[in-house]
């Protein structure tokens, strides 16, 4: 069986993970290591009148206690904002400082006030209890709807607003709304989520006073980016004096993109006390301080003409970005959201306004899908509402408005240009997979059992493979969007790939090996994959935004091109032929029209033992690096259809069937792709049915453990039917798109639409997320009460 591109080979890395042999940051220990524990705010919003650390400093095992003033005295800056946007009035995003330890004020429950460093974790925790903080409490700003009139969170920031951004043509859109035959209006809330990576965040920092350099082991999705931000912006030390290693990382979902204050405090204190400092979050700290996701309120107006074609769309959004601006917080609701509002529909004019608000809650940033789930949710909910209002079948209404296959490349009204796509086959396939046409029979069969059965469609598009650097830069991004890869061929022909992408569950070691196997004709087992160490790999941008393969994989392909090109020259020399006549296939070099051949291994050996080698024209060795900056985003698209049964007595929703048909372009490993789709759908179902971060009016997080924060479990999920279609990406060498986020983007509206569809005979036309049993039961009760009136 082939081990190359398109083969569903088993994941190389799984043996290690499944047998508990993974090596995570907390598994790493250094001689003389001490432990940090943070004293965190119990209150959401307060001035700090005083902090007394005396008793803590004298407690057993305590090495040091530091507060904000100590950080300020050393001039260490806080995490920076990686993306900003202009306001409607031309002014800039308000970027308030985010101190490592509170400077006179706390802004959310969990905000760090002091760090206690001790010989053991338990000693650090015990001493932390002795730190006395005297607060002058301020009103919490926990509610997004009223945040603009709440107490001032950041000095000088008006109405608690970080930014007020717009995209699209407002005049043309409002005109379309005015002239429309029908305007469909909908207000939706995208509920707030907590990432819950299996491995909590952790950091271990060590200072080498001889070389004046630091090593940081950390739970990062992008170690080089962390190094750049920490060294250049926060510590102002030479970047080369900081080595960042992200070893095995147990899930990120976006939450491990950013530099957090804890990593920085570990680095800073490791030099002050000249001992390695380790910190690992317990689960409560993860709930409180990992950057949360989503939390939007969207007001949508969709304009239709007499033939039910969309002629305009206006979306007004307020989003909750929390107490401090996390690294990519600004990008998520703007360029990863506003630009996706056309969906896969031909919409002549679109306008959106987004207000990014501060509240006294944890910072909010990218979480699987990041902006695109929010865009897809509001759009697909609106498409459903529109179909109902005009009396069309939900699938046919979408089909009517799809961008036609011959319209590509298609310029949307919101900046993006879709390179390719063909949306109807995904819809048709998904409908066939779930037997859409027989649905009404299943609905009536269910009603005989006292259940309401419903079917919901969600057709999505996403822009992934972040990102073309020039585009990102023009839109406010402060980093590049390229990726790197090095291919080192050993003298015996085995290969090590050094990637700037980072695998924290994605299976890069397998997928990237398959690309090498395909291109060099060597077995997968002969390919090693190295990532996550700033001293080992070329500078890389890391993994997020479904970019590893579409950007990092293409960088690898380009590095392999260079290896093949050089190998051909060596082979030509060995076979005494001209390089132009050498062909390379299945690991063998041949000369056209002759029986000459030489194996890849022989060429590798010649490169390193250059006894018979064109040294005058060619360097010895066989190691190549490529950097690849994509021309455009890639645009995976597809249709998910959910089928549910609702028990009216309890409001319980059972997902009885799920069909997903996605176009991810070419697939390298279909089994890994299917796994990504499964995981994404599970997370989307979690958002739609189960998960919700609940702050009370005082800004206390009431869902800070698994007793109250409901994660999806296997028995909440049906067996998914997953298929793919393929329109290869037109602008990268592999023809690949990206698949990591699609499931989480597509699934929530499919499920909510299915629930509404199930209950529509009762007159239910709206449903909020998460659709908990009580939420659904109440909707039924209210509809029945309305009907009785």
């Amino acid at each position, binding site marked *: 069986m082939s081990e190359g591109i398109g083969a569903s080979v088993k994941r190389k890395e799984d043996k290690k993970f499944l047998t508990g042999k993974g090596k995570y940051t907390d598994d790493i220990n250094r001689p003389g290591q001490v432990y940090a524990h943070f004293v965190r705010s119990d209150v959401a919003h307060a001035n700090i009148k005083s902090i007394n650390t005396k008793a803590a400093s004298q407690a057993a095992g305590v090495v040091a206690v530091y507060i904000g003033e100590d950080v300020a005295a050393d001039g260490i800056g806080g995490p920076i904002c990686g993306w900003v946007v202009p306001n409607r009035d031309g002014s800039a995003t308000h970027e308030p400082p985010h101190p490592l330890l509170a400077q006179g004020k706390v802004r959310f429950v969990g905000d760090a006030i002091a760090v206690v460093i001790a010989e053991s974790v338990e000693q650090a925790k*015990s001493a932390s*209890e002795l730190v006395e903080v005297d607060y002058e409490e301020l009103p919490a700003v926990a509610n997004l709807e009223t945040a603009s009139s709440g107490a001032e969170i950041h000095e000088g920031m008006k109405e608690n607003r970080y930014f007020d951004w717009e995209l699209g043509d407002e005049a043309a859109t409002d005109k379309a709304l005015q002239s429309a035959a029908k305007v469909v209006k909908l207000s939706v809330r995208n509920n707030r989520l907590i990432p819950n990576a299996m491995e909590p965040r952790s950091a271990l920092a060590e200072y080498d006073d001889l070389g004046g350099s630091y090593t940081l082991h950390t739970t990062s999705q992008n170690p080089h980016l962390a190094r750049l931000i920490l060294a250049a912006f926060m510590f102002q030390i030479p970047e080369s004096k900081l080595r960042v290693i992200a070893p095995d990382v147990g899930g990120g979902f976006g939450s491990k993109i950013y530099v957090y204050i804890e990593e920085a405090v570990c680095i800073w204190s490791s030099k002050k006390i000249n001992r390695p400092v380790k910190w690992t979050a317990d689960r409560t700290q993860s709930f409180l301080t990992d950057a949360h996701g989503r939390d939007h309120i969207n007001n949508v107006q969709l304009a239709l003409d007499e033939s039910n074609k969309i002629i305009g769309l206006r979306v007004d959004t307020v989003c909750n970005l929390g107490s401090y601006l996390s690294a990519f917080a600004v990008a998520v609701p703007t360029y990863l959201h506003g630009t996706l509002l056309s969906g896969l529909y031909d919409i002549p004019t679109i306008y959106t306004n987004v207000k990014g608000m501060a509240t006294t809650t944890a910072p909010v940033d990218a979480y699987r899908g990041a902006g695109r789930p929010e865009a897809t949710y509001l759009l697909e909910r609106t498409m459903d509402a529109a179909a109902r209002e005009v009396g069309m079948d939900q699938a046919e209404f979408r089909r009517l408005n799809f961008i036609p296959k011959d319209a590509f490349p298609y310029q949307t009204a919101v900046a993006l240009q879709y390179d390719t796509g063909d949306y109807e086959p995904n819809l048709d396939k998904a409908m066939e997979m779930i037997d859409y046409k027989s649905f009404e029979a299943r609905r009536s069969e269910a009603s005989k059992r006292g259940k309401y059965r419903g079917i919901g469609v969600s057709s999505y598009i996403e822009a992934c493979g972040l990102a073309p650097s020039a585009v990102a830069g023009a839109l406010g991004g402060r980093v590049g969007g390229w990726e790197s890869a090095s291919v080192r061929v050993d003298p015996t022909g085995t290969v090590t790939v050094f990637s700037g992408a980072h695998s924290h569950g994605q299976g890069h070691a397998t997928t990237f090996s398959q690309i090498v196997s395909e291109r060099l004709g060597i077995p997968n087992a002969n390919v090693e994959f190295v990532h996550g160490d700033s001293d080992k790999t070329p500078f890389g941008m890391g993994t997020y935004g479904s970019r590893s393969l579409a950007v990092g994989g293409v960088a690898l392909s380009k590095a392999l091109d260079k290896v093949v090109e050089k190998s051909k020259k060596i082979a030509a020399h060995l076979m005494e032929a001209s390089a132009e006549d050498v062909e390379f296939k299945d690991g063998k070099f041949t000369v056209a029209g002759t029986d000459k051949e030489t194996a890849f291994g022989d060429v590798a050996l010649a490169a390193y033992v250059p006894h018979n080698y064109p040294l005058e024209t060619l360097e010895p060795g066989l190691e190549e690096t490529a950097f690849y900056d994509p021309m455009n985003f890639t645009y995976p698209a597809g249709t998910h259809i959910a089928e549910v049964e609702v028990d009216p007595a309890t409001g319980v929703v059972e997902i009885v069937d799920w069909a997903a048909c996605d176009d991810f372009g070419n697939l390298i490993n279909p089994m890994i792709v299917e796994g990504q789709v499964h995981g994404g759908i599970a997370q989307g179902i979690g958002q739609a049915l189960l998960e919700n971060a609940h702050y009370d009016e005082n800004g206390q997080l009431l869902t800070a453990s698994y*007793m*109250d924060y409901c994660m999806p479990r296997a028995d909440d999920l049906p067996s998914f039917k997953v298929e793919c279609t393929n329109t290869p990406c037109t602008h990268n060498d592999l023809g690949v798109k990206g698949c990591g986020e699609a499931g989480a983007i597509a699934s929530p509206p499919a499920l909510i639409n299915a629930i509404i569809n199930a209950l529509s005979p009762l007159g239910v036309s709206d449903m909020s997320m998460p659709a908990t049993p*009580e939420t659904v*039961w109440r909707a039924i009760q209210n509809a029945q009460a309305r009907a009785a009136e």
Partner: protein
Amino acid sequence: MYSTKIVKAENSSAAVQAIGSSKEGKILAGGMTLIPTLKQRLANPDCLIDISSCGLEGVEDKGSSVRIGAMTKHAAVAESSSVAKAIPALADLAGGIGDRQVRNRGTLGGSVANNDPAACYPSAVMALDGTVHTNKRDISADDFFKGMFETALEEDEVIESVSFKKPEKACYMKFPNPASRYAMVGVFVAKFSDGVRVAVTGAGEEGVFRHSDLESALSSNFSEEAVSGVEVSSDGLMSDIHASADYRANLIGEMTKRAVSS
């Protein structure tokens, strides 16, 4: 957690003695609630008295009742053939507590002594007209549960076993909290020759309680229709971010119907 010492008691009187000689000692049964609490540093007992070697495990069929040792694990109750034969509803209940890990550690006595308002076992003790046997005395279920996390147990008292009367018919229906899988509402219905007992857990502000209206309706007519005729009040029911008192009231009726018709 704070450091503490562990004393392994050989029998229940030794356990009681150890409690007496400690300042704020705590009995450690399965530890499914106590250990997480200690890890969160929300309690600081100077001593934990481990009663796993006190010989308090096992199931005994006593003819008209089943007596189960306090340290019997949920998994053992779920898998016990005598429980399955005598009171299958009790085996079902035990098999639905927590997850496999919890069932392999958690104990009947620990659950009953803790009297968490959302725990499953108290409803069985109450509905099956149970008796809690301690080192000092026998306490009937109706006298044992005194409100949320409170019981009739005194400081020098350890549960040794619990007896459950064999019903003609019984069923436990749990509507789990989707996050914790504790009971959001759990209803244990037990039909005896002299009447029906209905115990509700997960819903009452004072913990497990008997629902007298449902009991009298079902005692005269053991049917779903009889349940439909009872208006379940939301007074005194818990409200939290997962479920309002109204919704819990609805679930009490619904779970009772399902228990009756199963």
